[in-house]
């Protein structure tokens, strides 16, 4: 991977100075919990009595526990829909908002708004939109002569929450892509226009290849977010007794730990989730070498 210039001398000092707050936070905040989680995953621990050694049993249990397997399947299905969704939609929005149009900053703010709004609050609003008999979405469908859809019933719930999660992530992706788009030299477009390339040709032959670093980065971030997704999903699909109609892995971790006194099992689930994400990241970096263009 050739990244061009390497930091030298004083620059190196500044590099570490700037990284220090994050690194200190990681080492003194997260590292302890990560090690503790790793250790606890080999124990039976109910939080209240001392942990006892469990060997690999928590991990072996993951392969046979139907609730966990269901959650894992949901997390994969969710990620497969969510990651391409976020990348495509936010790139589309960024391209639209990268033009000189009136009130562009207002639009950008509006698209970014979900990122700074409480997920719990917006999920409640989405519940009202999705309501089967009372929701505004079905109201419009009915007026268009279509039948009501039960958006949050178990067969549609996954799709419905994916849509909301994508909607919530557009703003963040848009910022990344806008930064990437502004780095594309204007001359390329001017030259292409002279050569008679239309908007679509310009997008596919200039913009797309040149924003591959942003696409790569956004895919990476979205994948991590997809594996950690919880708040919207839980708020929209929760049921009595703390269940969810679309249980995902993070939900399963939370529930095992806090409701079932099973911190060992929850830790093993967390470690498995982390390992899966790390493997995927490795795969992405392998893809990066083949497909990402650094100017």
């Amino acid at each position, binding site marked *: 991977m050739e990244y061009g210039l390497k930091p030298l001398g004083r620059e190196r000092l500044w590099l570490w100075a700037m990284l220090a707050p994050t690194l200190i936070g990681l080492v003194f905040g997260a590292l*302890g*919990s990560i*090690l*503790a989680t790793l*250790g*606890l995953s*080999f*124990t039976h621990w*109910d*939080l*209240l*009595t001392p*942990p006892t*050694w469990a060997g690999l049993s928590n991990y072996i249990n993951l392969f046979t526990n139907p*609730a966990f397997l269901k959650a894992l399947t949901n997390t994969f299905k969710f990620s497969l829909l969510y990651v391409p969704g976020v990348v495509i939609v936010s790139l589309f929005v960024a391209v639209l908002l990268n033009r000189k149009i009136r009130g562009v900053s207002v639009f950008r703010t509006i698209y970014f708004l979900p990122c700074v709004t409480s997920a719990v609050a917006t999920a*409640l609003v989405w*519940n*009202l939109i999705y*309501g*089967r*008999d*009372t*929701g505004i979405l079905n109201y419009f469908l009915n007026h268009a002569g279509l039948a009501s859809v*039960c958006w*949050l*019933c*178990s*067969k549609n719930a996954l799709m419905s929450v994916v849509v909301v999660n994508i909607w919530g992530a557009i703003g963040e992706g848009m910022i990344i892509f806008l930064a990437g788009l502004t780095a594309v030299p204007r001359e390329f477009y001017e030259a292409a226009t002279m050569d008679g390339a239309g908007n679509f040709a310009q997008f596919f032959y200039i913009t797309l290849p040149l924003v591959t670093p942003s696409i790569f980065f956004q895919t990476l971030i979205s994948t991590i977010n997809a594996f950690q997704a919880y708040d919207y999903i839980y708020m929209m699909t929760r*049921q*009595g*007794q*703390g*269940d969810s*109609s679309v249980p995902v892995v993070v939900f399963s971790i939370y*529930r095992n730990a*806090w*409701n*079932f*006194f099973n911190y060992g099992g929850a830790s093993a689930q967390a470690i498995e989730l982390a390992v899966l994400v790390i493997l995927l990241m490795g795969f992405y970096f392998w893809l990066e070498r083949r497909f990402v263009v650094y100017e």
Partner: protein
Amino acid sequence: MKKTLFSLVMAAVLLLTACGGQKSTTNPGSGTPVQITYMEWGDPAELDVWKAIVSDFEAANPGVKVNVDVSDWDSYWTKLKTLLAANTPPDVFAMDAPLYPDYQSRGVLLNLQPYIDKNPGMLDGLFPNTLTAYKTPDGYFGLPRDFQTIAVFYNKDMFDKAGVPYPKAGWTYDDLRATAKALTKDTSGDGKIDQFGYVIDPWDFEGGMSEIIWAYGGDLINADHTKTLLGDPNARQAFQFLHDMMFVDKSIPDPNTSSQYGGDLFLSGNAAMIATGHWSVPGYSEAKFKWDVVPMPKGPAGQATSVNSAGFVVAKDSKNPQVAFNFIKFVESAAGQTRLAQMGFACPVLESVAKSDAFLKQSTLINQQIFLDELAYAHMKPVFKGYDEWSSTVGDGLTPMWNGEAQLNPTLDQIVVAADAVLAKNK
């Protein structure tokens, strides 16, 4: 390898818990006030009543200060577990009877028996049903604070409008079904039902499910908590009855329907009847319609309802166990129970107060006596180690059936297997 990893874990855990902070408890002999903390789940409105109780207690016990901490139900349990794990638990905290064994069996609660023994007669006036849940072979590790029996609340205005007579004590489940059917309507005329006859909680047994199972002669679980009985013929019949009300009569909204109303369908005026406890009374007193309460209906095996008690426990690591116990004793006394009764969320466990005007003549004019009379045929909401996981497993298993995506009988068959596995694990 095993050992080093384990010590690493313990080191990490200690490091994390060490950040938990110190509690401000002072030595009783030092002259500065002794402080204890009382933590409970509840409504913010309850805080005022607790402040009144605390100031009465502090006035009677100079040099003692009680800090009250109220959280909502979900945060309460997370917070409590964290504080217990960090060895900084509140001195006194509230307990829900079904969850009590999960804590008692793990040794984090103080055995109150020696303290009770020093106060002979202290438990005499308490309703015996409410004490049972907290009794263990080693004595009481907790004491009931108040109790809840379940009754049917009904919207009088809705009955009047439909010309349906009010339900009366001694009614049967067949009466309930007919009444609910008569009150299920599409009031807006858009082809969708928007007024339902009856509402149950399809996941929490005390919200209308356990009552009918008992009234049909079934049970939830066997006496030593090793076998789930929800698949037995009587329980099946009871489930079938609720299932038919939901899917044949459509007089009980299924969860997909009720979730769109975002809360309590009875309070929002979308349901004529609901099976719930006294905790609903303060909220319903704000309703814009007239309502009253009637005992649970009779089934083929007689009348049955559910009783559950919230209680107090003391942390084993409390620095001031005697003060903590004195606080509990005060709330169990007539003075404390009278204040709690006025709060209106629950029924007093002290019989003399429950039968006094403090409880019977509350600002909300309903027949409070019903909640006391129901004790005669009330079954205790199950109390055993692993209750939370067991009831979640049952609840998760029922979900596809209540959503209309699975058949009743195979669902119950599967639930029994899964729930029994949880029971075996928690033995």
